[in-house]
């Protein structure tokens, strides 16, 4: 009974101030679009981060006096380990060449560097998903082989890389949060506007003996309807935009990051819409408080 009355009064509200509601929904669509974009970035950055955190590398520096046989044996052992996907031998000469390539140094300058600055090494690629504890264990074992000078696990480099991606992700998360605040502000203001415009109506209802919940009903409904309409529209638009852009950049993006981009998962989409409905309802109820004191 009361819900029907609330519904019919909500309809009356939409009828009386249609333009305001259209403006409100439009600005909410924009806000949710921002939110969706931010969530999409977070989702894909997270995927890249988890992919990259799995790609790891290790270098085994060999002593100058290391015997060929020792090295060959070490290679065999390493190749037999499941955690290591590839082993490459870099000679001291090649190391010097590579350094020269990377640094663009003249051969004269290069010649001045001490010979032991460029030890021969075994470059190891690790399989996906090897935990860092295991890596440290392998490193410790390899260390004990004859001919091994030092084992570099690049913990600091990968740590740095990961922290960079984490920074990107938390940036995106922060942005999402900002957008959420913005969405809240827009919803809040829209509802305040609707409520302030209908101050007289609320006063009349209260003075004629309406309970607070009776007065609140249609406003809460309107808030929910607006928020759900706007968030659904925004998600649809975002999907259309995603589908349109996807084809253009997917291949390059995949090549660069090694990760296929994905759209928000359906649960996130539904969750966003549900959260919007919730915020719409709460926002309406809160905005009313001030005017219910009659």
């Amino acid at each position, binding site marked *: 009974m*009361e819900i029907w009355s609330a519904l019919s009064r909500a309809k009356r509200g939409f009828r009386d101030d249609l333009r305001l509601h259209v403006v409100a929904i439009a600005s909410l669509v924009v806000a949710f679009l921002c939110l969706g974009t931010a969530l999409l970035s977070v989702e894909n950055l997270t995927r890249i981060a988890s992919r990259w955190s799995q790609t790891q590398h290790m270098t085994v520096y060999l002593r100058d006096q290391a015997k060929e046989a020792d090295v060959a044996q070490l290679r065999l052992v390493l190749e037999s380990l499941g955690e290591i996907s590839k082993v490459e031998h870099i000679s001291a000469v090649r190391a010097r060449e590579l350094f020269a390539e990377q640094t663009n140094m003249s051969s004269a300058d290069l010649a001045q560097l001490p010979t032991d600055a460029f030890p021969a090494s075994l470059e190891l690629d690790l399989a996906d998903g090897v935990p860092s504890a295991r890596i440290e264990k392998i490193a410790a074992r390899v260390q004990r082989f004859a001919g091994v000078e030092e084992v570099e696990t690049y913990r600091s480099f990968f740590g740095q890389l990961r922290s960079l991606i984490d920074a990107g992700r938390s940036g995106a998360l922060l942005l999402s949060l900002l957008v959420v605040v913005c969405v809240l502000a827009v919803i809040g203001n829209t509802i305040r506007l609707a409520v302030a415009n209908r101050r007289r109506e609320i006063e009349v209802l209260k*003075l*004629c003996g309406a309970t607070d919940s009776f007065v609140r009903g249609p406003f809460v409904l309107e808030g929910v309807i607006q928020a759900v309409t706007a968030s659904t529209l925004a998600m649809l638009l975002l999907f259309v935009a995603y589908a349109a852009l996807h084809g253009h950049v997917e291949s390059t993006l995949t090549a660069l990051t090694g990760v296929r981009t994905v759209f928000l998962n359906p649960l996130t989409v539904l969750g966003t819409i549900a959260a919007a409905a919730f915020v719409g309802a709460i926002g309406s109820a809160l905005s009313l408080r001030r005017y219910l004191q009659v």
Partner: protein
Amino acid sequence: MANPGSGRKGNVVRPSVFRGKHRDDAPKPILVMEEVYKYFRRDVPTLRNVNLTVERGEFVFVTGPSGSGKSTLLQLVYRQHTVDSGRILFSGRDVSRLTDSSIPFLRRNLGIVFQDFKVVPHWTVYENVAVSLEILGTNARLARSRVAEALERVGLAGRGNERTETLSGGEQQRVAIARAIVTEPALLLADEPTGNLDPQLAIDILTLFEEIHEAGTTVLFATHDHSLLATSPHRLVVIDDGRLIEASQGLRAWSARMQSLGASHAS
């Protein structure tokens, strides 16, 4: 029809708080004010030591100069304001001690004509009158017929679909009256309900209130209009300088007093 709890009120939801409790001892007054004080400014009370007892089924005029506290008196009854000292009993219940959540149930027993109408300008006339039935949960069909009847009684038959803001001042006032009477309340509080009406229509509206009163409703009628006071035999109370004076000696004595007061006021 002498009992306001009976009649057509089958569809009207009234909490037991305000009903039945005193059915057995019907003579118990519907409204009692005891030593009521109301201060809007710290030093000057707007109402001072007001004592008023309104029996069930009475018709009481309240009059007094502008700014004397007539509206305030009515507002205290429907809990727009609360008393600063003293108490107000409606059907034996202390109005100032109601919780916020039971105020609506108090108001559902009242029909209120506000001095500034308080109609919603962008609603239709019909919607403005029907709102008080909607709040009571009256079903739509019954509501339609009762709103139509109320509009006819105030002389606005057939104008239900007009936007209220396009009505003339007097017409809006009559919409406010229709809204107050459509629920057939136990107590009708009318604050200057004829201020924007021509003399003939004012008398018509007074007649309407008297009819409703005949049917058992208690009426508290605040007005300036001396021609109305002159033609009616009802009880009259006067508020002046915040004090309530029972004009039991008849209108004429009070009127003479008013004239002298008015003269000094105009100086």
